[in-house]
């Protein structure tokens, strides 16, 4: 029997039927295809967490209100956590049932509970590993050793807990410059309590640290030179395990950066002397917070002398201080002297750039000698001064040579001027001579 498609009219019909069928299949495939990416995405990343809490709490006033934009930038929110992650309750429900006990609602945690609450995730290495395998998970353990943690355990709720430094509902990573724990902002964060004299009254510790630090070279390095590795409060005191370094360990803290000075200090007579007197190294002379740029005036016997605080006139220590100060002064003077001559030579148009460059090495020697001061042995300082003096002397000679060359040029000028005067005189007489025949009135 003839198949359906063999008859011409059936064939046409069959063709159009096939076309429709083909389009239908294509359409279904497309629909399936369109839903594919959505499903794939849904599997790759959890769908944005449903967080109905914000629907009401973003329009309430303090203390129940939450800034929606701030919360959007919160690092926890960005990783898919919701209000319920910390506060409990059901974020999917959009009525008061969300905050029911049945849903596990905890409400606002008590201050004493906050470290443990944060630690419930942040001290769980396996859990944090899912988000950032290199993130530390010892913050809670460290906190328990800190002054803050110990006092909190004793019932003092005035001390700092996690949220006081990191803020809450708008927590930013420390690398974000807007974060309260970004290196540039750390000191201000600590100062919120530690610079508040009224708040700190009962603790009987100074409250001038922030003011001192703000005037220090470390602060200047960070803020003016943009060196984010410069120390701030947490660098020396620790952040989670915040505690002041003990008298005996201050030097260890400073020497993490100031290695040379510490090594040299350890070779000096001061190490034993300070330890015996229970004086903190480094801090005794340089202070702890208001660390100023040291000057040669710290040595010797002048008004700014620090040595005079302990040493009295006539003792060997003061004599050493004077000797070191004199040596440093000698090199500084030598460098200034050759600088002056070189400047004069340069402004006379002479080429002295090599000598000016070499001056940098003399200045390096001075820098090195100022570090060697920490041995408190004049002989060592003098040994470092010598190369500097030699270079400064060499540059001085170069400058004087350049000035001599300049004088030689002026001599050359004088000679050529003489030749010109000779030529002009010759011309003048020659003119007179050839005109003495005619009666030209021109003279």
């Amino acid at each position: 029997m003839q198949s359906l498609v063999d008859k011409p009219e059936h064939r046409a019909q069959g063709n159009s039927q096939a076309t429709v069928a083909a389009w239908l299949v294509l359409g279904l495939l497309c629909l399936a295809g369109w839903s594919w990416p959505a499903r794939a995405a849904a599997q790759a990343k959890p769908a944005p967490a449903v967080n109905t809490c914000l629907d009401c709490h973003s329009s309430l006033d303090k203390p129940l209100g939450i800034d929606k934009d701030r919360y959007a930038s919160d690092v926890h929110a960005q990783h898919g956590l919701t209000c319920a992650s910390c506060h409990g309750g059901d974020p999917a429900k959009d009525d008061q049932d969300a905050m029911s006990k049945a849903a596990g609602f905890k409400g606002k945690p008590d201050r004493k509970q906050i470290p443990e609450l944060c630690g419930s995730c942040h001290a769980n290495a396996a859990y944090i590993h899912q988000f950032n395998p290199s993130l530390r998970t010892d913050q809670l353990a460290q906190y328990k050793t800190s002054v803050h943690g110990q006092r909190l355990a004793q019932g003092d709720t005035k001390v700092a807990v996690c949220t006081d430094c990191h803020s809450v509902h708008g927590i930013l990573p420390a690398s974000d410059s807007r974060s309260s724990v970004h290196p540039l902002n750390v000191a201000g964060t600590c100062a919120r309590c530690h610079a508040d004299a009224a708040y700190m009254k009962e603790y009987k510790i100074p409250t001038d640290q922030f003011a001192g630090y703000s005037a220090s070279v470390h602060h200047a390095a960070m803020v003016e030179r943009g060196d984010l590795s410069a120390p701030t409060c947490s660098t020396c005191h620790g952040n989670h395990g915040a505690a002041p370094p003990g008298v005996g360990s201050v030097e260890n803290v400073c020497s993490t950066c100031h290695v040379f000075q510490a090594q040299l200090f350890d070779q000096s007579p001061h190490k034993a002397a300070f330890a015996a007197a229970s004086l903190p190294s480094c801090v005794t002379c340089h202070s702890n917070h208001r660390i100023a740029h040291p000057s040669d005036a710290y040595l010797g016997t002048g008004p700014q002398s620090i040595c005079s605080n302990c040493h009295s006139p006539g003792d060997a220590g003061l004599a050493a201080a004077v000797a070191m100060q004199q040596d440093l002064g000698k090199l500084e003077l030598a460098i200034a002297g050759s600088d002056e001559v070189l400047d004069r030579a340069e402004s006379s148009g002479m080429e002295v750039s090599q000598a000016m460059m070499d001056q940098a090495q003399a200045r390096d020697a001075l820098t090195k000698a100022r570090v060697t001061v920490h041995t408190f042995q004049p002989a060592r300082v003098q040994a470092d001064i010598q190369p500097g003096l030699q270079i400064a002397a060499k540059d001085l000679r170069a400058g004087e040579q350049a000035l001599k060359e300049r004088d030689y040029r002026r001599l050359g000028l004088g000679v050529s001027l003489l030749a010109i005067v000779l030529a002009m005189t010759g011309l003048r007489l020659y003119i007179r001579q050839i005109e003495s025949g005619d009666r030209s009135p021109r003279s």
Partner: protein
Amino acid sequence: MVNAREEAAVSKEKNNPVEGTPAPGRRRFVEVLLGSGLLATAVSFLYPVLRYLVPPASADLGSNTVVAAKVGDLKPNSGKVFRFGNQPGLLVLDSSGQYHAMSAVCTHLSCTVQYRSDQHVVWCACHNGVYDLNGRNVSGPPPRPLALYEVHVQGDDIVVSRQRSA
């Protein structure tokens, strides 16, 4: 005007019996004076020009290139500070015979760095900053690496040039 005429008349009378011609001796003197003046000035102008035309010993390679040293100046595992423009540069020949060149200005407080043959690193004596042979700051206070330069050996010269920007 009048004075000059009088002067000329007086000198004429003095020097020559024949009107209008100066004495031969005087003429000779003037000519010698003029000649020597012209010669002296010519020499004092030509001398600097001729010296100028001779190219100086150190060629002007521009601000981006310099001959840092000659082959053989450095022993393996040693370094040398050379001048690059107005700043010091450091040339190092490592133990495997390769040259490295970088800026010698420490990125901490601008002291001049040096090569430590015992530790095979670039070291700053001021505050113990350490860099590797690629200029990277590996330890100590320096906040940034040292700028690296290109080194080429041209015949007897070790030519150091700034890196061409990509």
